[in-house]
């Protein structure tokens, strides 16, 4: 009964989304204030319907309703409760429902928080969101319904992929999806602006917080996914440049560009057309990334053939959303007036440079991700593009971004000279060069350069804060007073940029990391990475739905006892699958990382890594998201309803 209610709620949500889309666009077109006033209610209704639908699916999962196909395929009675709930979005059907739910949450948020938006703009934004949502809910209902029943009901489920049975991955999809789907709001604003035919500073001020929130979520989601790969897959790596990862990186790159160019629209009324294009592009990449790659259309052409209905529906939907918005852009963009003029060396100029480089990096990633499947499809040639390609092509473009990132915020708007900036940031540059020089003695050129750039980023990012607070020059009390008066957004930008520096340092640390694979009997000791590792014990331990083989490793440094580590290997009998439970011991400067491999002739294979600065990779991402959240909290973004520029009346 409950799954039928969930199915009904899903269909209801789809109808409400259709109504929201039609009434929003049509009402704003006809300037019908009654129709326009109905859209917020519809958006909230759609959210309630989808929330009920998701709750019904969670109910079916927690109550082990094995008459529902999706539950049979992805759940099992013995699965721990937390993973029964989080497992609802760990599969294709459930993740589409989650996607729709997050989109509905965005719509409801615009409806509730958009009280100060002009009625017509709000109706159009909600209309675009509703139309998009309707398409995806229709996809869920017709080709991947999470509530489909089977008869006769199964006695027990098949269980989910044991790799997903992990708290990190349990919360990774909702966060990542909030990032992906959140960019639907800037997209809807962009399409609404094209429909209206005008953009002004107020538009930039409305769009920026939405882009920023999505960007923060996307940053956290990517970091969480890479952290999960690091500790769960047990290969010691954190980024493999595989299509699923690239799918999240591409919208992140253009989203980062969007977050910056929206500032220019807001502050200087410039780069409007470009910002609209970025908003459309970012959401298009989110969509095509998740749906093309995750549904396996591009990854394996045969998955497409095995369920043609799904593939064709998705392609048609993508063509409609992306093609439609780009067509609208081509038709209407010339009508958007361009604003303030600026010199190449200025804050605007720096942001343009940031945008060009980020979009170039994105283009490289797109080519590297899409070329192999198209090559297979068109030429029948099987090739793959791995990490060496991406490293070779992305790094030369990333280095200038890092170099320019610290200087950009120091430049004044409109017109600037480089000399004053040099005066403010010379000490940061000096320290960075010294660090790079010192590193280059014992290291290869690239890691040394990366450490130097990282220092430059961290120090340079705070050069502006130091400059603005007159730190070290004025009395401390006066500096403190100035710091309190500093706009939060300035601090946020500095923290986010420094976070990138922290991540770069973490990535560079990989070059100092060591790993050793040993075949060990109980009692054996090994030297690796300056530590002494001793295998103390091997024993069997039982878990809720798996049995596990656990090793105890005793780690000493220079004879001083350091820690005990418990790597284990879990066997899931239901899925006939084995996963590695990595033991990690961190002190935030390095990770000790131990994996227990297979056993043969009484000896166990151990993989022992010392990963220098590895935690910094995710710490930096945390700083980036924190910086974004801080600049979101800036009073200047909240106080007062932005009022629109007056429309010039044609004579």
């Amino acid at each position, binding site marked *: 009964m409950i799954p039928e209610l969930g199915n009904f709620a899903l269909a209801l949500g789809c109808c409400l989304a259709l109504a929201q889309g039609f009434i929003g666009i049509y009402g704003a077109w006809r300037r019908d204030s009654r129709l326009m006033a109905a859209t917020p209610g519809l958006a909230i209704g759609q959210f309630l319907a989808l929330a009920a639908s998701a709750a019904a699916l969670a109910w079916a999962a927690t109550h082990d309703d094995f008459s529902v196909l999706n539950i049979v395929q992805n759940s099992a009675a013995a699965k721990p409760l937390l993973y029964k709930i989080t497992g609802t979005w760990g599969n294709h059907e459930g993740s589409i429902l989650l996607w729709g739910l997050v989109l509905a949450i965005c719509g409801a948020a615009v409806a509730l928080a958009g009280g100060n938006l002009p009625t017509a703009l709000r109706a159009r934004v909600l209309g675009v969101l509703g139309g998009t949502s309707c398409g995806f809910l229709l996809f869920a209902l017709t080709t991947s319904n999470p509530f489909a029943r089977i008869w006769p009901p199964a006695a027990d489920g098949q269980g989910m992929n044991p790799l997903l049975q992990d708290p990190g991955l349990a919360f990774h999809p909702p966060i990542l999806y909030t990032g992906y789907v959140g960019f639907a709001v800037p997209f809807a604003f962009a399409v609404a602006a094209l429909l209206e035919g005008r953009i002004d500073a107020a538009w930039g001020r409305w769009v920026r917080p939405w882009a920023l929130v999505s960007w923060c979520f996307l940053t956290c989601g990517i970091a969480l996914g890479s952290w999960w790969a690091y500790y769960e897959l047990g290969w010691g790596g954190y980024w493999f440049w595989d299509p699923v990862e690239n799918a999240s990186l591409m919208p992140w790159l253009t989203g980062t560009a969007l977050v910056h160019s929206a500032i220019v629209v807001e502050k200087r009324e410039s780069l409007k057309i470009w910002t609209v294009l970025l908003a459309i592009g970012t959401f298009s990449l989110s969509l095509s990334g998740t749906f093309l790659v995750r549904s396996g259309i591009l990854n*394996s052409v*045969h998955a497409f053939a095995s369920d043609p209905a799904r593939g064709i529906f998705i392609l048609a939907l993508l063509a409609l959303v992306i093609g439609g918005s780009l067509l609208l852009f081509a038709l209407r963009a010339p009508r958007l007036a*361009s604003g303030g*003029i*600026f*010199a*190449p060396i200025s804050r605007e100029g720096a942001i*343009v*440079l940031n945008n*060009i*480089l980020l*979009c*170039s*990096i994105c*283009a*490289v990633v797109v*080519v*590297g991700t899409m*070329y192999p499947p198209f090559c297979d499809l068109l030429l029948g*040639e*099987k*090739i*793959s*593009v*791995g990490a*060496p*390609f*991406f490293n*070779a*092509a992305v790094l*030369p*473009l990333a280095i200038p971004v890092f170099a320019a990132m610290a200087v950009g915020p120091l430049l004044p708007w409109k017109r600037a000279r480089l000399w004053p900036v040099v005066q403010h940031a010379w000490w940061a540059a000096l320290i960075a060069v010294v660090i790079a020089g010192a590193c280059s003695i014992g290291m290869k050129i690239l890691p040394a350069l990366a450490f130097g750039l990282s220092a430059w980023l961290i120090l340079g990012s705070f050069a502006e804060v130091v400059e603005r607070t007159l730190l070290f020059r004025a009395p401390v009390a006066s500096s403190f007073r100035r710091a309190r008066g500093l706009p939060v957004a300035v601090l946020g930008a500095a923290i986010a940029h420094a976070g990138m520096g922290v991540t770069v340092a973490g990535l560079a640390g990989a070059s100092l990391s060591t790993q*050793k*694979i*040993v*075949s060990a009997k109980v009692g054996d000791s*090994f030297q690796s990475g300056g530590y002494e590792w001793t295998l103390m014990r091997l024993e069997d331990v039982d878990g809720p739905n798996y049995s596990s083989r656990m090793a105890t490793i005793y780690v000493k440094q220079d004879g001083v006892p350091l820690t005990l580590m418990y790597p284990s290997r879990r066997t899931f009998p239901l*899925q*006939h*699958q*084995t996963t590695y439970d990595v033991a990690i011991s961190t002190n935030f400067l390095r990770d000790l990382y131990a994996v227990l*491999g*297979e056993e*043969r002739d009484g000896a166990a*294979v151990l*993989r022992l890594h010392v990963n220098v600065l590895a935690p910094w990779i995710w710490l930096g991402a945390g700083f980036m998201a924190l910086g974004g959240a801080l600049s979101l909290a800036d009073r200047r973004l909240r106080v007062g309803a932005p009022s629109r520029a007056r429309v010039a009346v044609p004579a």
Partner: protein
Amino acid sequence: MTRKRRRLVIVLASLAGLGSAAALTLAAFSDNLVFFMTPADIAEKNPAPGQTIRLGGMVEPGSVHHATVEGSPAATFRVTDGKAAIEVSYSGILPDLFREGQGVVAVGALAQDHSFRAQEVLAKHDEKYMPKDVADALKKRGYWKDKGGVPGS
């Protein structure tokens, strides 16, 4: 600076950015494209030693030998596609799902003696499933029966 000149500067900068991206992509493509081959492909095309290849095929039953080299585990095995076979050596932990008579993908390069040195061995599939590249390649070579999968598995 006039609007026109500013636009020119931006357009030129964008072109430079995209141009260098394209150049870098092409350069990286020519060095780092990795082709998927089966042992018979290697016998036909005879790729240069040192060129990175993704080798796919079946692990020949009875060909796996485990050894310990300098305290680290190592293994040698033969990969076949029914037409040709090639000797593969690998030092490291073989994945849990690595089995004799099962599909495997090894990333590595040919050595001077025409044996294959794998840097990475992938068998990220369950018992029923074959890596898709391998299944396609074996079908093409007629070494695949649709119902029963691979003979002898």
